[in-house]
């Protein structure tokens, strides 16, 4: 039975040998040589150090194209024209499904035709040398971003390739991304990824690990996201990771977002071992965007404002072309600069909004309820507790496509636009907290003159892309107008 225990050295080596045989570039990896390589990198390419020593939020976009030259050009552009502090390399879908053969075909076709035949950078196929060419070409730290349930080979190659930050985790890259991977399976595979990061860490190469906070990206109640971040942080710490960046996706209500980021940092420091340096990352709105660049810039502006007040360590930016999918590099850089301008104008202002402390306290209490139920479900073991709690529905994520989560809990915004829980299903929570949510949603129902129902959920899902925060019924909206 899988438990939250450190993978022994011999087992680490056994798995490492096994997974490296899955694709030809696996044989390029030599751990000792990789340590020397990392030691040769200049300070300003050491991801954990740069992130942890920053005294204002660092900005990072999303970006990945199949060919190495194109990826270098793209990241150089985002660094130069977008003034990104940290850079990403987003991995293609075939690699996420461990289909390295298909990724190879796509890459070769991309090289022949010059077209982007893959939706990201196939790092496994580029191999250790390809990764190092990228690391050397770009004058800033780079993170691997993907969405891979089994990222063991990807981690082995990119770590050896000089990357010092790696997104994802066994829950956050399972529940929102895939239907049929079991949690036990993904936890086991991510224990290896974390153990490998831990092995580098023990040799002085602190690989930064970043659980994916936004989860399903759609109205995720903050406490659910934070609980999952704490679980993934604990799992990584057990394997020896010492630089952990906990994530959170903007819900759009400034008070709740600031409160959640504060709670995330505080609970991260509390739940994770002292030897771990905990930082936070704020993702600009991950839900549906307006089909209009001007309005999308408004959404990005609200994100920047929230970041200026909450001061997370990092912000992942959106572009005004979010609606249409992958942005041009110009639009990507534009999202970075809009965010930078708002943050730099607002961050030195003393903006302290009433109610943040109360909201933070509520989020912390909710998160503690969830952490407690995980503890109980696993008799003290966080791995078993997580698996069992998801199984019973005591832990759940709204709109989760995975069979590993019930996906029965449903969120809705309250009258101020804060995300509350409308349908609890089997989610574990103290009754008095449930009453608070119910009272808040009831006030909204009164404002709108309708019953609390799934209609609110449906209206809220589309609200921001329709130009509002709260999905009010049409009659209420027209009353609002002039």
């Amino acid at each position: 039975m899988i438990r939250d225990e450190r993978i022994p050295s011999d087992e680490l080596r056994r798995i490492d040998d096994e997974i490296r045989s899955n694709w030809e570039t696996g044989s390029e990896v030599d751990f000792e040589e990789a340590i020397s390589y990392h030691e040769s990198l200049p300070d300003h390419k050491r991801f954990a150090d740069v992130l942890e020593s920053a005294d204002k939020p660092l900005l990072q976009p999303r970006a990945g194209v199949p060919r190495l030259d194109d990826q270098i050009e793209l990241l150089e552009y985002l660094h130069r024209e977008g003034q990104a502090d940290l850079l990403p390399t987003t991995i293609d879908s075939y690699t996420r499904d461990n289909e390295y053969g298909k990724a190879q075909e796509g890459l070769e076709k991309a090289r022949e035709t010059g077209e982007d035949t893959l939706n990201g950078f196939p790092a496994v196929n580029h191999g250790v040398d390809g990764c190092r060419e990228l690391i050397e070409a770009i004058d800033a730290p780079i993170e691997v971003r993907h969405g891979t349930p089994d990222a063991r080979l990807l981690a082995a190659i990119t770590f050896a390739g000089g990357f010092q930050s790696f997104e994802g985790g066994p829950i956050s890259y399972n529940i929102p991304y895939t239907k049929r991977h079991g949690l036990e399976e993904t936890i086991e595979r991510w224990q290896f990824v974390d153990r490998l990061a831990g092995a580098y860490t023990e040799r002085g190469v602190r690989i930064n690990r970043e659980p994916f906070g936004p989860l399903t990206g759609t109205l995720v109640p903050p406490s659910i996201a934070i609980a999952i971040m704490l679980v993934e942080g604990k799992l990584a710490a057990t394997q020896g990771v010492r630089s952990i960046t906990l994530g959170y996706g903007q819900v759009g209500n400034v008070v709740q977002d600031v409160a959640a980021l504060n709670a995330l940092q505080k609970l991260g420091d509390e739940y994770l071992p002292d030897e771990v340096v905990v930082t936070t990352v704020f993702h600009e709105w991950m839900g549906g965007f307006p089909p209009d660049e001007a309005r999308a810039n408004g959404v990005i502006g609200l994100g920047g404002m929230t970041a200026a007040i909450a001061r997370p360590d990092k912000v992942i930016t959106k572009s005004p072309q979010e609606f249409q999918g992958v942005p041009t590099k110009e639009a990507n850089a534009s999202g970075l600069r809009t965010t930078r301008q708002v943050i730099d104008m607002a961050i030195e202002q003393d903006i302290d909004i009433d109610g943040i402390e109360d909201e933070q306290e509520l989020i912390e209490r909710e998160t503690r309820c969830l952490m407690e139920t995980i503890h109980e479900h696993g008799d003290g073991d966080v791995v078993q507790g997580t698996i069992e709690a998801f199984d019973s529905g005591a832990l759940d994520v709204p709109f989760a496509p995975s069979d590993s989560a019930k996906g029965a809990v449903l969120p809705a915004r309250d009258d101020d636009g804060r995300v509350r829980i409308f349908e609890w299903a089997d989610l574990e929570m103290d009754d008095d907290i449930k009453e608070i949510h119910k009272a808040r949603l009831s006030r909204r129902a009164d404002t709108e003159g309708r019953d609390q129902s799934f209609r609110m959920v449906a209206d809220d899902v589309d609200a921001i892309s329709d130009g509002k925060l709260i999905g009010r019924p049409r009659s209420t909206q027209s009353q609002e107008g002039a």
Partner: protein
Amino acid sequence: MIGNTMSQTVVLGVIGSDAHVVGITILEQAFSAAGFDVVNLGVQTSQEQFAEAAADHDAGAVLVSSLYGHAEQDCQGFHQVLEEAGVDAVTYIGGNLAVGQDDFEQTRRTFRELGFDRVFDSETDPEEAIAALRQDLEITPTESERVSVSS
């Protein structure tokens, strides 16, 4: 066949490799609230899984969702698979059904020809689908075809 005797069970799912779960979750809630028995197969559901669930539950309707633009490909031969499984249900499809969805009437014709009784675009309210299904399950399919659907 008279609708009143038809099953009130609705099988829902997202077809193919599509992982968009939000719409189907909202639909599940809406149809449940409207009094239907809902079997939600979730995302990434194969034609065979739809057919098996519809047969097992003697479903009155099969509602297919697709949002990633590959619906036409994913639905080729779907109605034959249903027929072979002995499913006799009303079939609807809705979502972003074509990549460049400039002419929805063309898209509607395409999916009607594939065998779907009704075709909805992604802007359709759940209420509209519920109203249509109430009609289709209580009157003969032939008559239902005369009902004009605005979407």
